[in-house]
């Protein structure tokens, strides 16, 4: 399944907002059963920070396992730089 992250907004900045988005996705967007891959599509995002991404992605990885989570980065430079930063510290 694919989650269009722009459904949570296109300027994704703060930790509290990332945490809230994660809780909402866990409750309403992801099936409780099954093990199909979960694609997080950031391709429509305009602004992303490591704070928001860390809360959202790390939360889902903890709940559903890293192996199921696939991140679609897209072309936006703030999205690319966010995931480069997080990957460098092995957070996500």
């Amino acid at each position, binding site marked *: 399944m694919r989650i269009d992250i722009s459904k949570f907004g296109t300027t994704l*900045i703060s*930790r509290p907002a990332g945490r809230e988005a994660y809780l909402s996705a866990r409750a309403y967007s992801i099936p409780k059963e099954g093990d199909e891959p979960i694609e997080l599509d950031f391709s429509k995002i305009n602004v992303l920070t490591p704070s928001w991404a860390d809360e959202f992605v790390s939360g889902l990885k903890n709940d559903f396992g890293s192996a199921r989570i696939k991140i679609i980065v897209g072309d936006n*430079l703030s999205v690319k730089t966010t995931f480069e*930063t*997080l990957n460098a510290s092995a957070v996500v």
Partner: protein
Amino acid sequence: MKALEWVIAQEGVEKPSQFYCETRDVAQARVEKMRPDFIAHKWSDDESGLLAAIAGELTGNCFDHNLGNWPNLPGCWFEYEVDDSSFRMVIADRGRGVLKTLRQVRPELKDDHEALGVAFTEIVTGRAPEQRGNGLKFVIRSLGLLHGLQSFLFVSGNAALRLSGKVDIIDVLRYIAEADTTVSGTYVELSVRKNI
């Protein structure tokens, strides 16, 4: 009143409504307003996205590390100007500063200079055991991608990180020196010329 005067004032501090963000929600709303301003002045998605993300991380830090512990006035100063060729931003807070924050997890830190070096180069956060500490590394990485970077100044305590022009983000420690003005919280200035 200018941001630097506001952040170093000892007492009787006013709340400059134009730039003052008492809560995170206000700061976040102002960061979200940046994008239409950039579009109006024809900045690229890459540059505007990075600059807004830097603003988001830096304003977020003001609240993340001071919530419930403000020495006096809570909140941050967030000011920016953008036109067809240049961008300037100031973010400041009257919080505890980098050294006091990082001593929560690194009590051996000896001074502001050392604390600033750790903050910008190591994955460490005063909010451990939470997995945080990427924000300032992201800021440095982003600054390295902005070809029009003119200057970046980050002051906390009596230490300052000063960058100008094309910077070597691998070796930021050598850009840390004594601040011109001591700031108990944090004070950040960023100037960028549009990369046409």
